[in-house]
Protein backbone atom coordinates (compact mmCIF):
# COMPACT_ATOMS: atom_id res chain seq x y z
CA UNK A 1 0.00 0.00 0.00
CA UNK A 2 1.19 3.54 -0.88
CA UNK A 3 4.25 1.98 -2.51
CA UNK A 4 5.69 0.98 0.85
CA UNK A 5 6.11 -2.56 -0.42
CA UNK A 6 9.11 -1.38 -2.39
CA UNK A 7 10.90 -0.52 0.85
CA UNK A 8 12.63 -3.46 2.50
CA UNK A 9 10.83 -4.63 5.68
CA UNK A 10 13.82 -3.87 7.91
CA UNK A 11 14.04 -0.28 6.68
CA UNK A 12 10.27 0.10 7.02
CA UNK A 13 10.39 -1.09 10.64
CA UNK A 14 13.35 1.15 11.38
CA UNK A 15 11.56 4.19 9.91
CA UNK A 16 8.44 3.38 11.92
CA UNK A 17 10.52 3.08 15.10
CA UNK A 18 12.24 6.38 14.32
CA UNK A 19 8.87 8.07 13.85
CA UNK A 20 7.33 6.57 17.00
CA UNK A 21 10.45 7.41 19.03
CA UNK A 22 10.45 10.95 17.67
CA UNK A 23 6.81 11.52 18.58
CA UNK A 24 7.34 10.05 22.05
CA UNK A 25 10.43 12.20 22.61
CA UNK A 26 8.69 15.38 21.44
CA UNK A 27 5.42 14.83 23.33
CA UNK A 28 7.19 13.52 26.44
CA UNK A 29 9.51 16.52 26.60
CA UNK A 30 6.63 18.97 26.06
CA UNK A 31 4.59 17.34 28.84
CA UNK A 32 7.49 17.08 31.27
CA UNK A 33 8.73 20.64 30.80
CA UNK A 34 5.20 22.03 31.22
CA UNK A 35 4.60 20.05 34.42
CA UNK A 36 7.99 21.04 35.86
CA UNK A 37 7.55 24.72 34.94
CA UNK A 38 4.06 24.90 36.46
CA UNK A 39 5.14 23.10 39.65
CA UNK A 40 8.00 25.50 40.29
CA UNK A 41 10.46 22.70 41.03
CA UNK A 42 13.21 24.40 39.03
CA UNK A 43 12.47 27.98 40.03
CA UNK A 44 9.96 30.39 38.54
CA UNK A 45 7.77 29.92 41.60
CA UNK A 46 5.26 27.73 39.76
CA UNK A 47 4.00 30.51 37.51
CA UNK A 48 1.64 29.10 34.92
CA UNK A 49 2.55 29.95 31.32
CA UNK A 50 -1.12 30.78 30.65
CA UNK A 51 -1.18 33.23 33.57
CA UNK A 52 2.09 34.76 32.39
CA UNK A 53 0.81 35.16 28.82
CA UNK A 54 -2.43 36.70 30.08
CA UNK A 55 -0.61 39.25 32.24
CA UNK A 56 1.70 40.25 29.41
CA UNK A 57 -1.25 40.60 27.02
CA UNK A 58 -3.20 42.60 29.61
CA UNK A 59 -0.38 45.08 30.19
CA UNK A 60 0.35 45.42 26.48
CA UNK A 61 -3.41 45.74 25.75
CA UNK A 62 -3.38 42.91 23.22
CA UNK A 63 -7.11 42.29 22.95
CA UNK A 64 -6.72 39.39 20.53
CA UNK A 65 -4.29 37.53 22.80
CA UNK A 66 -6.54 38.18 25.79
CA UNK A 67 -9.61 36.76 24.06
CA UNK A 68 -7.64 33.63 23.12
CA UNK A 69 -6.83 33.05 26.78
CA UNK A 70 -10.42 33.55 27.92
CA UNK A 71 -13.29 31.07 27.53
CA UNK A 72 -15.09 31.25 24.20
CA UNK A 73 -17.39 34.26 24.08
CA UNK A 74 -19.99 35.52 21.62
CA UNK A 75 -19.06 38.04 18.95
CA UNK A 76 -20.68 41.00 20.76
CA UNK A 77 -18.77 40.28 23.98
CA UNK A 78 -15.52 40.08 22.00
CA UNK A 79 -16.31 43.36 20.26
CA UNK A 80 -16.92 44.99 23.64
CA UNK A 81 -13.57 43.68 24.90
CA UNK A 82 -11.82 45.14 21.85
CA UNK A 83 -13.53 48.49 22.42
CA UNK A 84 -12.63 48.51 26.11
CA UNK A 85 -9.00 47.76 25.30
CA UNK A 86 -8.78 50.54 22.74
CA UNK A 87 -10.50 53.06 25.01
CA UNK A 88 -8.17 52.45 27.95
CA UNK A 89 -5.69 55.17 28.65
CA UNK A 90 -2.77 54.63 26.30
CA UNK A 91 -0.31 56.50 28.48
CA UNK A 92 -0.38 54.05 31.40
CA UNK A 93 3.13 52.73 31.98
CA UNK A 94 3.67 49.48 33.89
CA UNK A 95 6.59 49.92 36.30
CA UNK A 96 6.81 46.42 37.71
CA UNK A 97 5.03 43.08 37.54
CA UNK A 98 5.75 40.61 40.32
CA UNK A 99 4.45 37.07 40.44
CA UNK A 100 3.52 36.48 44.08
CA UNK A 101 2.54 32.83 43.79
CA UNK A 102 -0.33 30.51 43.21
CA UNK A 103 -1.97 27.23 43.95
CA UNK A 104 -3.68 24.58 41.90
CA UNK A 105 -6.14 21.77 42.37
CA UNK A 106 -6.85 19.60 39.36
CA UNK A 107 -7.66 21.78 36.34
CA UNK A 108 -8.28 24.81 38.56
CA UNK A 109 -5.45 27.15 39.51
CA UNK A 110 -5.12 30.61 41.02
CA UNK A 111 -2.14 32.89 40.30
CA UNK A 112 -1.56 36.24 42.01
CA UNK A 113 0.49 39.21 40.78
CA UNK A 114 1.43 42.61 42.17
CA UNK A 115 1.45 45.38 39.57
CA UNK A 116 2.84 48.91 39.73
CA UNK A 117 1.68 51.38 37.11
CA UNK A 118 2.22 55.06 36.43
CA UNK A 119 -0.44 57.01 34.55
CA UNK A 120 0.45 59.86 32.22
CA UNK A 121 -0.98 62.30 34.77
CA UNK A 122 1.63 61.03 37.23
CA UNK A 123 -0.86 59.01 39.26
CA UNK A 124 0.86 55.97 40.80
CA UNK A 125 -0.96 52.71 41.55
CA UNK A 126 0.23 49.56 43.30
CA UNK A 127 -2.38 46.81 43.18
CA UNK A 128 -2.77 43.02 43.07
CA UNK A 129 -4.39 40.89 40.37
CA UNK A 130 -5.60 37.36 41.01
CA UNK A 131 -6.19 35.16 37.95
CA UNK A 132 -8.33 32.04 38.18
CA UNK A 133 -7.54 29.56 35.41
CA UNK A 134 -9.59 26.52 34.47
CA UNK A 135 -8.22 24.22 31.79
CA UNK A 136 -5.86 26.84 30.37
CA UNK A 137 -8.50 29.60 30.19
CA UNK A 138 -8.61 32.64 32.47
CA UNK A 139 -12.14 32.60 33.90
CA UNK A 140 -11.81 35.25 36.59
CA UNK A 141 -9.62 38.33 37.07
CA UNK A 142 -9.78 40.32 40.30
Amino acid at each position, binding site marked *: MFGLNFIPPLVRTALAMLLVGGLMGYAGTAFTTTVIADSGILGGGGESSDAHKYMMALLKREADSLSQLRPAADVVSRALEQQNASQQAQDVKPL*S*VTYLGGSSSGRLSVHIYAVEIQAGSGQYQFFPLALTIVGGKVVRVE
Partner: protein
Amino acid sequence: MNSARAALILATFLGGIVAGVTIYAVTDKGAEANPYTSLPRAAEPAVTADVARALSTDDAKALSNQLDMEVLQQLQTAIEPLTDIRSMKFVGAVEKNGRTLAAYVAGGRTSDGTDVLVGFVLRVTGDQIVGVN
Protein backbone atom coordinates in the same frame (compact mmCIF):
# COMPACT_ATOMS: atom_id res chain seq x y z
CA MET B 1 21.25 -11.85 12.49
CA ASN B 2 18.12 -11.52 14.62
CA SER B 3 20.00 -9.82 17.43
CA ALA B 4 21.58 -7.40 14.98
CA ARG B 5 18.15 -6.61 13.58
CA ALA B 6 16.73 -6.07 17.08
CA ALA B 7 19.67 -3.83 17.97
CA LEU B 8 19.13 -1.76 14.83
CA ILE B 9 15.42 -1.32 15.56
CA LEU B 10 16.12 -0.39 19.19
CA ALA B 11 18.80 2.05 18.06
CA THR B 12 16.46 3.76 15.60
CA PHE B 13 13.77 3.98 18.30
CA LEU B 14 16.21 5.58 20.75
CA GLY B 15 17.51 7.80 17.98
CA GLY B 16 13.93 8.90 17.32
CA ILE B 17 13.45 9.83 20.97
CA VAL B 18 16.67 11.86 20.94
CA ALA B 19 15.58 13.55 17.69
CA GLY B 20 12.14 14.34 19.17
CA VAL B 21 13.68 15.88 22.29
CA THR B 22 16.11 17.88 20.15
CA ILE B 23 13.37 19.16 17.83
CA TYR B 24 11.28 20.24 20.84
CA ALA B 25 14.27 22.01 22.41
CA VAL B 26 15.02 23.86 19.17
CA THR B 27 11.42 24.81 18.29
CA ASP B 28 10.07 25.60 21.77
CA LYS B 29 10.00 29.35 22.29
CA GLY B 30 9.04 28.98 25.95
CA ALA B 31 7.16 31.62 27.86
CA GLU B 32 7.90 35.21 26.92
CA ALA B 33 10.23 36.65 29.51
CA ASN B 34 8.81 39.28 31.84
CA PRO B 35 9.87 42.61 30.27
CA TYR B 36 9.04 44.47 33.48
CA THR B 37 11.02 44.58 36.69
CA SER B 38 9.93 42.44 39.63
CA LEU B 39 9.87 43.56 43.24
CA PRO B 40 11.78 41.58 45.86
CA ARG B 41 9.70 39.20 47.96
CA ALA B 42 8.79 40.18 51.51
CA ALA B 43 8.07 37.99 54.52
CA GLU B 44 4.49 37.24 55.53
CA PRO B 45 3.31 40.08 57.78
CA ALA B 46 2.31 38.90 61.26
CA VAL B 47 -1.00 40.76 61.08
CA THR B 48 -2.08 38.98 57.88
CA ALA B 49 -0.86 35.62 59.23
CA ASP B 50 -3.26 36.10 62.17
CA VAL B 51 -6.15 36.78 59.78
CA ALA B 52 -5.27 33.73 57.67
CA ARG B 53 -5.17 31.59 60.81
CA ALA B 54 -8.58 32.88 61.91
CA LEU B 55 -10.02 32.11 58.47
CA SER B 56 -8.60 28.59 58.34
CA THR B 57 -9.76 27.78 61.89
CA ASP B 58 -13.22 29.23 61.24
CA ASP B 59 -12.72 31.69 64.11
CA ALA B 60 -15.24 34.47 63.49
CA LYS B 61 -14.57 36.09 66.87
CA ALA B 62 -10.85 36.50 66.17
CA LEU B 63 -11.61 37.91 62.72
CA SER B 64 -14.04 40.44 64.12
CA ASN B 65 -11.38 41.57 66.60
CA GLN B 66 -8.69 41.87 63.94
CA LEU B 67 -10.54 43.68 61.16
CA ASP B 68 -12.91 46.62 61.02
CA MET B 69 -16.30 46.33 59.36
CA GLU B 70 -15.27 47.85 56.04
CA VAL B 71 -12.31 45.48 55.63
CA LEU B 72 -14.45 42.52 56.75
CA GLN B 73 -16.97 43.35 54.02
CA GLN B 74 -14.16 43.54 51.45
CA LEU B 75 -12.91 40.16 52.68
CA GLN B 76 -16.38 38.70 52.39
CA THR B 77 -16.54 39.82 48.75
CA ALA B 78 -13.00 38.63 48.05
CA ILE B 79 -13.56 35.05 49.22
CA GLU B 80 -16.86 34.59 47.37
CA PRO B 81 -18.17 32.00 46.52
CA LEU B 82 -16.39 30.08 49.33
CA THR B 83 -18.61 29.27 52.29
CA ASP B 84 -16.50 26.55 53.92
CA ILE B 85 -12.75 27.27 54.04
CA ARG B 86 -10.69 24.09 54.35
CA SER B 87 -7.21 25.25 53.42
CA MET B 88 -5.29 28.49 53.49
CA LYS B 89 -1.96 29.05 51.78
CA PHE B 90 0.28 32.11 51.94
CA VAL B 91 1.73 32.43 48.44
CA GLY B 92 3.84 35.56 48.68
CA ALA B 93 4.16 39.22 49.62
CA VAL B 94 5.82 42.34 48.27
CA GLU B 95 6.46 45.72 49.87
CA LYS B 96 6.71 49.13 48.22
CA ASN B 97 6.76 52.58 49.83
CA GLY B 98 5.52 51.23 53.16
CA ARG B 99 2.63 49.34 51.56
CA THR B 100 2.65 45.56 51.64
CA LEU B 101 0.53 43.21 49.55
CA ALA B 102 0.20 39.74 51.10
CA ALA B 103 -1.36 37.12 48.84
CA TYR B 104 -3.27 34.01 49.93
CA VAL B 105 -5.12 31.20 48.22
CA ALA B 106 -8.06 29.71 50.11
CA GLY B 107 -9.48 26.33 49.23
CA GLY B 108 -12.85 24.97 50.23
CA ARG B 109 -16.40 24.47 49.19
CA THR B 110 -19.23 26.61 47.93
CA SER B 111 -22.75 26.41 49.28
CA ASP B 112 -23.60 23.75 46.68
CA GLY B 113 -20.61 21.60 47.66
CA THR B 114 -18.31 22.45 44.75
CA ASP B 115 -14.58 22.48 45.54
CA VAL B 116 -13.00 25.82 44.57
CA LEU B 117 -9.85 27.86 45.07
CA VAL B 118 -10.02 31.61 45.65
CA GLY B 119 -7.11 34.03 45.66
CA PHE B 120 -7.19 37.22 47.72
CA VAL B 121 -4.71 39.86 48.76
CA LEU B 122 -4.53 41.71 52.07
CA ARG B 123 -3.20 45.27 51.82
CA VAL B 124 -1.12 46.31 54.81
CA THR B 125 0.10 49.76 55.81
CA GLY B 126 1.96 50.29 59.07
CA ASP B 127 1.10 46.90 60.60
CA GLN B 128 -2.59 47.40 59.86
CA ILE B 129 -4.75 45.71 57.26
CA VAL B 130 -6.28 48.56 55.28
CA GLY B 131 -7.99 46.64 52.50
CA VAL B 132 -8.66 43.37 50.72
CA ASN B 133 -8.64 42.64 46.99
